[in-house]
């Protein structure tokens, strides 16, 4: 007993030292502050020239499916109403990494490279998604719609795409070498070129194209042309906010099975056929497989 009594102060001192060291380590770790901290306005990068999905009608006044999704998710995690800033496709990842915006909700496709950490050769983004899924399509002048039934009908035609998108990458593949490409900075340039007769078609995701179709009655989506891998749109944030990411993911899983998701899609993309809307709705398993990860998860094997 005497020996034990003699050791007790030593043990106490050692325990205190360990606890102090742990506390110091904890203080020194300086964890990333939450994006949703009280009183903090979340800054969101959104497209400004895609009616139906993400559009800036007047300065600072955004609407579209992306905007509705962002507002709904932030409301569900109890964050303050966000501030939207216009962003072009190729600036989406740099703006997040540089801290210019907190989130990007801009028809941003989830890819393996984008979700891989920068030190592993990726773009260092976490995604919350998909919140909508869509294949690639073609937008043409309504007057020319009868000319196009399949992708082969575009052979030899001039198709406009914009830089920094998976749609542009897809059409550069050898399988589509018969299609001539014109690359623009963003959607608005391509749509104006189509209306002006400078190009024969605009190609990007069908959800985006149906938004243009609603805004521009002279243009129409070719119903029979849906090609390439399905684009899954995700809310992107720079890595380092995993807890915030998981809160958004949990909110999204509840949102996509709710009537609010249907309401938001119908309100913003009224021309989208029901079949395409059903294809656009993600499952909770898909959200778990792609959200808040450095690489996609395994699919469940049934």
């Amino acid at each position: 007993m005497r020996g034990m009594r003699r050791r007790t102060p030593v043990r106490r001192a050692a325990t205190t030292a360990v606890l102090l060291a742990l506390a110091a380590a904890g203080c020194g770790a300086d964890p990333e502050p939450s994006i949703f901290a009280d009183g903090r306005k979340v800054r969101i990068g959104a497209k400004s020239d895609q009616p139906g999905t993400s559009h800036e009608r007047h300065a600072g006044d955004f609407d579209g499916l992306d905007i509705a999704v962002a507002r709904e998710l932030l409301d569900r995690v109890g964050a303050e109403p966000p501030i939207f800033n216009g962003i072009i496709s190729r600036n989406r990842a740099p703006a997040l990494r540089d801290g210019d915006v907190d989130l990007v909700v801009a028809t941003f496709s989830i890819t393996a490279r984008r979700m891989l950490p920068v030190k592993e050769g990726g773009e260092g983004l976490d995604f919350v998604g998909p919140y909508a899924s869509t294949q690639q399509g073609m937008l043409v002048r309504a007057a020319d719609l009868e000319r196009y039934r399949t992708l082969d009908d575009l052979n030899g035609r001039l198709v406009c795409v914009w830089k920094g998108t998976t749609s542009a990458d897809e059409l550069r593949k050898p399988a589509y070498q018969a299609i001539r490409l014109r690359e623009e900075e963003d959607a608005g340039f391509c749509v104006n070129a189509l209306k002006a007769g400078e190009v024969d078609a605009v190609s990007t995701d069908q959800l985006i194209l149906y938004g243009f179709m609603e805004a521009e009655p002279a243009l129409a989506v070719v119903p029979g042309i849906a090609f390439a891998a399905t684009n899954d749109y995700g809310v992107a944030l720079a890595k380092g906010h995993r807890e915030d990411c998981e809160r958004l993911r949990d909110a999204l899983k509840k949102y996509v099975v709710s009537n609010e998701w249907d309401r938001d899609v119908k309100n913003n993309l009224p021309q989208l056929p029901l079949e395409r809307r059903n294809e656009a709705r993600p499952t909770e398993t898909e959200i778990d497989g792609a959200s808040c990860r450095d690489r996609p998860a395994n699919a469940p094997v049934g």
Partner: protein
Amino acid sequence: MEGDPGPGRRVHFETHHGAVHAGEIDRSTFTFLKNVDARSVVALLPLLVAVGIAGYAALSWPGGPQIQYAGFYAALGSGFVTSVRCAVMGPAGLTRPTATAGLLLVTVSLGASLLGLGGLEDIRRNREIPVGLSVQAAGPLTGSSTQTLVMPAPAPGEARDRLRLALTLTDDDPASPTCVHKTVATLTVLTPGVTPGVQRVPAQSEVEFDLGGRRGEVEIEIAVQTREGCALRVAQADGTLFNE
């Protein structure tokens, strides 16, 4: 006092380990150990054996993961340490009154080294053999195409009972929309006798096959069930041959 205690007589030796009754020690052993040269040989024998086994192991190292050599290292290390103790003890350690303890140390040392040798031979027969599987196909894996993984026939002495396959499928183009989390692969064995014949696995998986005594090449067809427009590729197909 040295000398033959005579047949049937119990002997009482005082050693630094305490009193030892050594009536069971064979008379001939003590007769043999009367010779100082013989005692020197016996004291050095464990070290010679340990060094010999270490040299043999180095010259004929089977290779493979180090973890499987843990038992070998432990046994030969023990044998080596005790053999050094035997060598330091020298012929004096095998002289009464410490002869029994000395002999015991020699026996333990030899036993440990030989145990290590046995372990090494067991690893040689059963060690895991890494084997690369080649992919025979052109173009990416899509919902409408298949590829064949080919495991070459193992070298003589490297055939095993089972194959463990570590498989990783990734997006063919990492810049295109990811399909990995929507993809399930079906592995169908094309080589007769290898089981199970069909397995469904996710994009990143580890599966085992019973080779059924087969010693030659093994072919496994891989098909994917994924979404339209998705293209994947086999990023990793590493095999390991092993016995159960």
